[in-house]
């Protein structure tokens, strides 16, 4: 049985207390958390070293202005932290980070990962100003009842991996009736237990039974996932429906730039598009009589699926930023999961597990040897 501590402050306040105490006692050198920006009312990940700057921290605010895994990779791409740094990130952000570690784009050393049982997030547009106020109470009420809140990003409603894995501390939120009073933190590693011991935040107790609401949310998410999958129907032989879906894509590649897995400095598809000469479109004109300009819109998406969907953690970041509302994360989640199933792979589950296309078993997959 793992241990938990209870902080007698709720939600954001509770997490702030935890982070502030760790920072003040020198348990960690810095913390990474979402924080309101004094200036414009937006929300961003902030690397905080001064406890006073935590006053504006909103670790649990339900938006994702950037993928936390990508942020952690920016921070640790060149070298690991030399001293402990705590980071509050969502489970899909943790999974994204783990995939980046596997790709040598990040170091996990000295990172103390703190992650919530994730109730989901609202679209990123809601991060600016404070248009969330009205909905936030309802959001936490639903969470304590083990129900999905209204207005979440679609991809969150079908996320079954909302309970963090591979982290040091889990913020237990789902299905808890005392959410408005206290924060329950499960200590998942020995390191976490050791750190918390000296914080004076109360003695660790044995973790209790899972609340009913947790099970309820699990089933709600399973149903949500099935619904999302049913909505996207690309069956066919000519890719017609898939191509139609991307008819309005403006090829801005925002989806790839904010994706934690698409870490490449120079994306293959951009390099190729830049290198394409007249031979490219002349060939198209000959065959089709017309061609979209710039070319390669659908190709980019299929190519990206082939490059990275095996590691797609369904974080929804891509869909959040798509200016023309293409259900891009739902598509990548669905296709990605299908590909992942072939190899029984769950991206981000375990840093020691190899990416399937970088390893093999001698006796397997004979169905593709035709």
């Amino acid at each position: 049985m793992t241990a938990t501590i209870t902080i007698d402050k709720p939600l954001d306040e509770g997490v702030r207390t935890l982070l502030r105490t760790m920072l003040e006692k020198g348990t960690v050198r810095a913390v990474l958390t979402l924080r309101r920006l004094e200036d414009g009312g937006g929300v961003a990940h902030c690397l905080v070293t001064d406890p006073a700057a935590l006053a504006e921290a909103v670790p649990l605010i339900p938006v994702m202005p950037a993928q936390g895994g990508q942020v952690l990779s920016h921070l640790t791409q060149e070298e690991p932290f030399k001293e402990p740094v705590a980071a509050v990130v969502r489970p899909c952000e943790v999974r994204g980070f783990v995939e980046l570690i596997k790709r040598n784009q990040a170091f996990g050393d000295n990172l103390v990962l703190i992650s919530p049982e994730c109730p989901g997030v609202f679209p990123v547009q809601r991060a600016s100003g404070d248009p969330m106020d009205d909905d936030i109470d309802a959001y936490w009420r639903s969470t304590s009842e083990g129900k999905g809140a209204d207005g979440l990003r679609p991809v969150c409603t079908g996320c079954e991996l909302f309970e963090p894995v591979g982290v040091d501390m889990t913020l237990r939120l789902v299905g808890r009736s005392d959410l408005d009073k206290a924060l329950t933190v499960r200590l998942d590693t020995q390191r976490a237990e050791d750190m918390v011991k000296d914080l004076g935040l109360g003695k660790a107790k044995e973790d209790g039974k899972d609340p009913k609401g947790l099970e309820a949310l699990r089933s709600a998410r399973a149903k949500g996932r099935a619904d999302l999958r049913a909505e996207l129907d690309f069956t066919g032989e000519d890719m017609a429906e898939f191509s139609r879906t991307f008819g309005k894509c403006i090829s801005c590649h925002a989806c790839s730039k904010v994706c934690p897995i698409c870490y490449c400095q120079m994306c293959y598809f951009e390099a190729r598009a830049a290198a394409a000469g007249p031979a490219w479109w002349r060939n198209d004109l000959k065959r089709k009589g017309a061609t979209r300009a710039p070319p390669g819109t659908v190709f980019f998406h299929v190519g990206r699926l082939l490059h990275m969907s095996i590691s797609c953690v369904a974080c929804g970041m891509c869909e959040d930023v798509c200016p023309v509302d293409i259900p891009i994360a739902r598509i990548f989640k669905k296709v990605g999961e299908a590909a992942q199933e072939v190899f029984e792979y769950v991206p981000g589950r375990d840093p020691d597990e190899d990416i399937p296309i970088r390893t093999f078993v001698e006796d397997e997959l004979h169905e593709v040897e035709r």
Partner: protein
Amino acid sequence: MTDEKKKEAGYEHKILSFCCNWCSYAGADLAGVSRLQMPANFRTIRVMCSSRVNPVYVFTALERGADGVIVTGCHPGDCHYARGNYFTRRRQALLEKVLDEIGFDRERVMLRWISASEGPEFADTMEEFDSTIRSKGKNPLSEEVFL
């Protein structure tokens, strides 16, 4: 695309084959010097190892109008870079899955192992794939403007 167009009279389909240098390309060569009957509709790109063929290349060919793409390599265990073709197999599994999911006919791609001594097998494989693709007709992507 309409069915009549697919079966357009006189349409000559195009097949791209990737052959690994050490086995399949040698197999193709053998088929050639043995003067075995082979379809004329395929063009070959020689690669050092079947694992050099990124699935994106296969899809590139399809997007650029090829009607079918076949990847050939050494038999498992015989790859000259020891393990390349095991990776090829995984990539093929990935490619076929993705094609399935986005609704593209995955029978337009194929993976087969052919050794240097298997000239007749090479010829048979090409014959077989050729007739599959012939019966499928034109790749619907080759005339889609909005790609």
